[in-house]
């Protein structure tokens, strides 16, 4: 495991419930290290998005504690590059790719004007995601895969220490997914990556741990597993992970 880094997300005894009273998350304990890559999985309504929003400081826990980069999630936001699901955005909105990526350079100051330096960073982020040649294209005319790359470029333009990706592989064809994982690997050299996904086909080699969220949270490290073992255990097309066993907070091993 690449465990040299310190913890950048520390969640202890966290619980969250909406006003209606139904608990969404209970007794969550989680440590996420610097330069780690983890994938949040779980059924719909299991609390994946809630966990994501807690980390982003968009909602507050009803119990327990969450620290991101050693401080309140709200204060740590500027260190996080967030990519939402593109399906949640208005696909008719009149913006081009450059407009979108530049939003990663927004800040509170100077009426939101962009400097030459901001533009340079945006272009670098686009080059990294191989979308620089699309810069002047309308966002509405892009394919799903292209939109995802543009939104990741926007997240990279924030110059983040942690990349938070919400369903980066949804609605994208397998060939592009493969490309995407290669890019993730390259990015992982300089930033931590936390992604939400339904798709676990890549668990073996690209992810350090799998965070299963279904009201409770369990961490399954994948570092000791080889690709062939995963295939043996789950079959080739891994699309789910077993939830029928319990493990300690630090995760467990599939012997």
């Amino acid at each position, binding site marked *: 495991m690449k465990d040299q880094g310190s913890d950048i997300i520390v969640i202890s005894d966290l619980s969250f419930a909406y*006003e209606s009273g139904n608990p969404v998350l209970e007794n969550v304990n989680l440590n996420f290290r610097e330069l780690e890559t983890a994938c949040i999985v779980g059924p719909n309504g299991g609390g994946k998005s809630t966990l994501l929003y807690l980390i*982003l400081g*968009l909602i507050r826990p009803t119990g327990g504690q969450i620290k991101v980069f050693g401080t309140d999630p709200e204060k740590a*936001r*500027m260190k*996080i590059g*967030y990519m*939402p699901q593109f399906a949640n*955005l*208005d696909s*008719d*909105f*009149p*913006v*081009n790719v450059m*407009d*979108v990526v*530049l*939003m*990663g350079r*927004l*800040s*509170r100051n100077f*009426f*939101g*004007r*962009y400097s030459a330096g901001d533009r340079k960073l945006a272009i670098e982020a686009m080059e990294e995601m191989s979308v620089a040649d699309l810069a002047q294209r*309308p966002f*509405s*005319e892009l394919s799903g895969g292209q939109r995802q790359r543009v939104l990741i470029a*926007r997240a990279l333009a*924030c110059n983040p220490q942690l990349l938070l990706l919400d369903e980066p592989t949804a609605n994208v064809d397998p060939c592009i997914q493969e490309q995407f994982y290669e890019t993730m690997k390259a990015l992982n050299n300089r930033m931590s990556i936390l992604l939400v996904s339904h798709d676990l086909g890549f668990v073996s080699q690209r992810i350090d741990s799998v965070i299963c969220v279904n009201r409770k949270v369990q961490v399954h490290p994948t570092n000791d597993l080889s690709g062939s073992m995963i295939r043996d255990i789950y079959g080739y097309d891994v699309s789910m992970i077993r939830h029928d066993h319990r493990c300690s907070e630090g995760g467990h091993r599939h012997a």
Partner: protein
Amino acid sequence: MLDFIRQLANPGMSFLLYAFLTGAVASVAFGIIGTYVVTRRITAIAGAIAHCVLGGIGIALYLKLNYQLAWCTPMLGAIVSALFSAIVIGLVSMYAKEREDTVIGAIWAIGMAVGLLFLAKTPGYIDLHSYLFGNILLVNADDFKVTLILDLVVLVPAILLFNNFLAVCFDSRFAELRGLRIKLTYLLLLCMTAMTIVLMVTIVGIIMVIALLTLPAAVAGYFTRRMWSMMALAILLSLVFTSSGLIVSYKWDLPSGPIIVVIAGGCYVLTVLYRLAVKRFLKK
């Protein structure tokens, strides 16, 4: 047309000049705010604010004529009620767990009803018709000055905060994560919309505000791919709709508000048909 231009220069016909200038100046705000309203999909909110304006006008006229408060003009009432309803709707949609469209509908109707009640108890003749359907030909020099000021009030933040508004309209959660005060930005946008609506009431009246706010931007949206170019085209179209409506209304003695709306609406329908035809043609 030539005759119309000659009339504009005629000192005896200054009402025509003021009408023309008012339409031209207000078009800038219509194009910019209309683009925000269309892309952010808050047409219903704009409609509710517009109808609340009647409430403000009613209360202002009631106070003015019953209590001899000369400063309490319909314009003041319109501005206060537009801002008030914009802030109420904004806060409700942000904080209350009510159904937003129900709240919008309620404010829409209550604003209008309050206005009608106060007007019923206001002595003397009130030209309700011109508030409901607009009459740009009634604009005088003072109204024109107010138009100019309101226009500036809307334009300055719209230009200075362009990037922030763009980000909040496109993806407000992301904007919030970049440290933008999204609630404040949204409230400001609603207040600017409210001011623009007050401008519009003089031109097309309360009932038809939504048409002039959304149609130019909707047409522009078909032909442009970026926010600023959509705004520029929407401004140009507003200008064309209001001034051509004015010419037609003057020439054939027709009410100006409905003519402007019919021209804008006709242009919109033609655009939609054109787009459908192009799509069909390209598919074959």
